[in-house]
């Protein structure tokens, strides 16, 4: 089963990467940019009986390792959620 984890800095925590990339893009002429934040995406393939079981295990991975609770929040997305969307390239 394929599961995607998005790990992002908590709101209020300084995003040095995001700030630097935003400044660089504005410098390159993307003046319409209002905000930009950078996080991690972790794509996991694992064996599980049901999607719910898979999600529970990934949740556990996040708690134990994938996210740093002091700084980061995480979101789990299942392949099913993701499949129908038409994403480019």
């Amino acid at each position, binding site marked *: 089963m394929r599961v995607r984890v998005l790990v992002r800095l908590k709101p209020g925590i300084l995003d*040095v*990467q995001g700030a*630097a*990339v935003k400044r*660089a893009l504005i410098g*390159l002429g993307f003046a319409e940019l209002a905000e930009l934040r*950078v996080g991690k995406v972790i794509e996991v393939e694992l064996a599980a009986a049901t999607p719910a079981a898979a999600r529970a295990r990934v949740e556990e991975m996040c708690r134990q390792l994938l996210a740093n609770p002091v700084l980061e929040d995480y979101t789990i997305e299942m392949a099913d959620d993701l499949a129908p969307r038409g994403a480019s390239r």
Partner: protein
Amino acid sequence: MRFGVVVFPGTWSDCDFHYVISEVLHQPVKYVWHRERQLDDLDCVILPGGFSYGDYLRAGAVAGRSPVVEALRDFVAKGGVVLGSCNGFQILCEAGLLPGALMRNECLQYRCQSTHLVVESVETPFTRGLRPGQVLAMPISHGEGKYHADAETLAGLKARNQIVFRYAEADGRVTKAANPNGSLENIAGVANPEGTVLGLMPHPERAAEAAMGGADGLLLFHSLLGSLVEDGSFLKR
């Protein structure tokens, strides 16, 4: 020869290169601000090490799109010579002035240590005074120095003799143990097909005085300045 040392926000080897060029090599040198586009008064432009723009997205990514790097294309086309070390190498790759890319070290850690380089190509102004197979001692200091290129690019590099340095043992053998960062085929430095743009991860400016533990880095400059004799040792001018 007139040297320019480029300064991006976050560059830190700028002062070191400036010092070596002016105090050790006694050549004219000036700093070039990253917004500069006018390089006509220079013969050699140096892109030094550091963390340009913090390297927060990818090493060298933002600097690779800066005005001075854009101006380098023209500078090179007119016969100018460019040396990128460490972050400078990353910037040249990001800008497409050199092929390939630099990724995170395979050990996933930063590495500051001494390395040995074996000279593969003497078809660049920086190595024309050296012998193929000559071994140079030069330190590295980077977190993203693992060179990557796809198979086709690699074949092209070999066909045109663009691989300039590989990490090696002190006796010149290219071994896995001598590879500090997991670089493809131990590649430590590459040049453009003309040889006028050289990028390398090691720091020649840190190996430019005996007091600092060795002066092999100076050989690149003496080669460039034409002050090398046959066997790769340099003449006192």
